[in-house]
């Protein structure tokens, strides 16, 4: 039996604001717990929420970039439930009228583009952070009240691979917009996935299972792949798939039941009367949404036009904001864009992956890489030598010139020096000259090898090539 997988993704994103969503406490992570807390965050009686304008601005930017219809009249609602991490006993959110709806983003899977719809984008506040220990739980209210947007996709995603591409692309766009840190491992971008399966052709959706606690993009894919397998097995055994919440267990790479959703909680949503509807100034909205930074797909097109890159290279370079930023520095220093792009995509990315590092950790200044490429083009160093230089540059703050000197790999391009070496080789291996004229191609290569050996690989290969042929021609006469 063939099944179709149906996936919807909810993303909670912490916004990069100075202060919290409804209080003047600072919005800072990685600080000593409970040092940035205002009476409003604690739900103290009589305190009232004040909407953070910057959070609205960042939400608008996100909505615009995700092609959403924007509601320029802000409405807030309460979601009521009791929980230790929720001091007010309700969360202020946007239930009835999200700030954005009906958007989409485009993902690329194996060269094919696909549009994934976005159901809604709404603003809300984060809860306190719970730190569970064996016999007790600690609460950190620094996180309580941090501005969030929730981005809810339409059920357009059909596989773990697509889901991973969706989250990656969304994350990349949001990073370009600079609205959030988007760090999954630190919880500034949190991802919940709804997965269901149905036999091909069936119109109705299957029973959906929610997976929480996905702290990396690769885990999103793994969790879904496992979950789909689990659901198919149940289906084929004729067992029911139940509405439940599961979490991904990294060690076993499986999903584990957290709770059944049999008695769904009634959140008793109703309007937040402490914030009257706020009609945003249309001019202001226009101003905020018309000044978006250049987004990945726009850069992709520009790189092909302006730098003559292949569509593949342009896509790879823009798929990661830090890589893009590095490349945009490079192009300021030298003009061999294709080669520079190649160094970034192949060598640099390879190096980082191998050493488990990110672009932020690179020590090499972009002008040094540009300089290095220029030296190759000018024949000052060979491509082979360049790889050596590159490895050294990646882990030090030295300049290309310093490294070249240190490694003693100055390329010998001097004609006199090279001619001396060539003649020495002729004297040592006279039979090679005969072989060469007898039409044995290998003889030429052999002589080059000997020259390189004598110069410890520092001879400029182009130059050697040219000079060797020139000297051999003299024997002909």
């Amino acid at each position, binding site marked *: 039996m063939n099944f179709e997988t149906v996936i919807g993704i909810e993303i909670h994103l912490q916004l990069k604001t100075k202060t919290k969503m409804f209080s003047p406490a600072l919005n800072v992570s990685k600080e000593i717990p409970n040092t940035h807390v205002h*009476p409003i965050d*604690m*739900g*103290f*009686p*009589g*305190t*009232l*929420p*004040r*909407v953070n304008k910057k959070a609205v601005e960042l939400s608008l930017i996100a909505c615009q970039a995700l092609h959403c219809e924007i509601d320029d009249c802000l409405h807030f609602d*309460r979601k*009521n439930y*009791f929980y*230790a991490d929720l*001091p*007010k*006993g*309700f969360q202020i959110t946007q239930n009835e009228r999200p700030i954005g709806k009906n958007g989409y983003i485009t993902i690329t899977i194996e060269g094919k583009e696909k549009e994934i719809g976005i159901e809604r984008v709404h603003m809300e506040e984060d809860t306190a952070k719970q730190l569970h220990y064996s016999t007790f*739980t600690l609460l950190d209210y620094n996180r309580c009240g941090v501005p969030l947007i929730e981005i809810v996709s339409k059920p357009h995603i059909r596989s773990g691979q697509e889901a991973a591409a969706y989250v990656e692309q969304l994350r990349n766009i949001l990073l370009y917009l600079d609205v959030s840190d988007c760090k999954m491992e630190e919880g500034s971008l949190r991802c919940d996935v709804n997965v269901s399966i149905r036999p091909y052709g069936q119109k109705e959706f299957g029973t959906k299972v929610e997976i929480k606690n996905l702290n990396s993009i690769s885990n999103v894919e793994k969790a879904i792949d496992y979950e789909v397998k689990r659901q198919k097995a149940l289906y084929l055994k004729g067992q029911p798939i139940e509405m439940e919440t599961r979490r991904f267990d990294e060690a076993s790479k499986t999903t584990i039941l957290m709770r059944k959703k049999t008695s769904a909680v*009634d959140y*008793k949503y*109703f309007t937040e*009367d*402490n*914030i*009257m509807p706020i009609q945003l100034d249309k001019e202001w909205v226009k101003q905020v949404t018309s000044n978006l930074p250049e987004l990945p797909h726009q850069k992709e097109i520009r790189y092909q036009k302006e730098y003559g890159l292949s569509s593949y290279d342009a896509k790879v370079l823009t798929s990661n904001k830090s890589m893009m930023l590095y490349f945009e520095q490079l192009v300021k220093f030298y003009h061999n864009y294709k080669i520079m792009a190649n160094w970034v995509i192949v060598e640099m990315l390879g190096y980082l992956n191998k050493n488990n590092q990110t672009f932020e950790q690179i020590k090499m200044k972009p002008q040094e890489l540009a300089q290095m490429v220029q030296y190759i083009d000018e024949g000052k160093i060979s491509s082979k030598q360049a790889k050596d230089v590159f490895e050294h540059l990646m882990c030090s703050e030295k300049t290309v010139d310093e490294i070249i000197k240190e490694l003693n790999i100055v390329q010998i391009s001097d004609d006199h020096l090279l001619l001396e070496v060539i003649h020495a080789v002729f004297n040592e291996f006279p039979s090679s000259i005969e072989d060469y004229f007898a039409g044995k191609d290998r003889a030429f290569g052999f002589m080059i090898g000997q020259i390189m050996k004598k110069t410890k690989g520092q001879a400029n290969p182009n130059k050697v090539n040219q000079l060797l042929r020139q000297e051999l021609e003299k024997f002909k006469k």
Partner: protein
Amino acid sequence: MGYLDQSLEKIHQDLKEHKVTVTKLVEEAIEKATKLQKECNAFVTFTTEDALQKAKELDQKEITENLFFGIPFAIKDNYATKNVLSTGSSRILNNYLPIYESTATDLLNHADAISIGKTVLDELAMGGSGLSGATGVVKNPLDPQRLIGGSSAGSCAAVTAGVVPFALGSDTGDSVRKPASFGGIVGFKPTWGRISRFGLYPFAPSLDTVAFFTRNVKDSAYAFDILNGYDNKDMTSFNFPKEKVYSKIDGNLKSPKIAVLKEIYETISNPEIKNKFDHFFNQCKKLGIQVDLISIDKKLYDTIYATYMILSCSEATSNNANLDGVNFGNYQDGNDIDKAIIATRTNGFGELIKRRFIFGSYFLSKENQDKMFLKAKKLRRLIVEDVNRILNQYDAIVLPASGNIAPLFEEVNPTDRLSDEYLLLENHMAIANFGGLPSITIPCIEHEGLPIGINITGKAFQDKEVLNLAYALEKMIGGNKK
């Protein structure tokens, strides 16, 4: 007799002429408060030392033109006061010391008024009797066999007894304007959004209003001047310039027209009381006021009480969800956090408000929202539209604040709760909360030696006009006689 049952202007004059000192005023207030506490149980907390200290400091200062200078006052215990116990008259907050000051009390402190203590209310402002405060029943100083009404019971008792000339209350349905009627004093609820609610414990934010008691209308006007204005801590406070109305209250009316809602007015069951109010309206006519008995859609107005209960209970259940003992309050232990929250709330709340929470939860639940909560919101809108229609033709709606004098304790609910008299006459003042309208109760008639007030409700933002009309009527009636 002392100073504190006089008008602010009179006290201020004597302060200026050094006939009395601020210390003397505070001492008088404390002495009277102590006596009142024994007889009527109006206070939860006294701030005697701080009050005397501040009085001493003020006595060193030059007296300004500010009428609140050195005036002792009382605060309903549902305002957060920094480092002063603020219990909301609930056991769940019996140890709660706020680290912030409500905007209203902050403004009064800055106006050099001196708080002598926090007063009892119906638990968390839910109730209209003064019976449900955690520290016990509040009695009516005019007759301790009777209740004073609520929820702002202690504040009303304090002004009624002449302990202070001004006390802060709060008004969600009629929590200031009803007790004012039973105490024979002035209770004013300004336009919603004119005074910041920051620090006022929320009952139902869309209805809650900072409101207060004084002994005469001009004092209320002065208090309004101190308290009104935009506050960046309350997004529902209107960003209008601060209003100064006191000097403009002169009782001069330009061809005034008032509406008496016939179907409500005619439910007064006691003919003697009805006669006295008829007489009052006749006097109004003699004063040149056009008094029209106008007919309303009774079916619509019959829903006021139900609408009020549905909206206020629904909002209350959410607003008081913060009282779970986790971050503050009277925490009760449990095996896990859920059980601890349940234990805290079970132990911390009185029976009456638990019932309201259950109602509220019921009205808001998914299956009932449409039928109840949203329907009540629609009714609220329809009622407000109708009231505003009337107020477009009249300067104010004027009706008795109550159909009778303060009830005896043994007859807490003397009126049949499903009778027209109860549903309409005893609950019509919630109209002003529905529409956010300025509304004031002033003493009007006496029956068996006890007062009943008249209520005046005007258009939103016409606080000055409502006060001015009230002032004219107060002059006509002769003011507070006690």
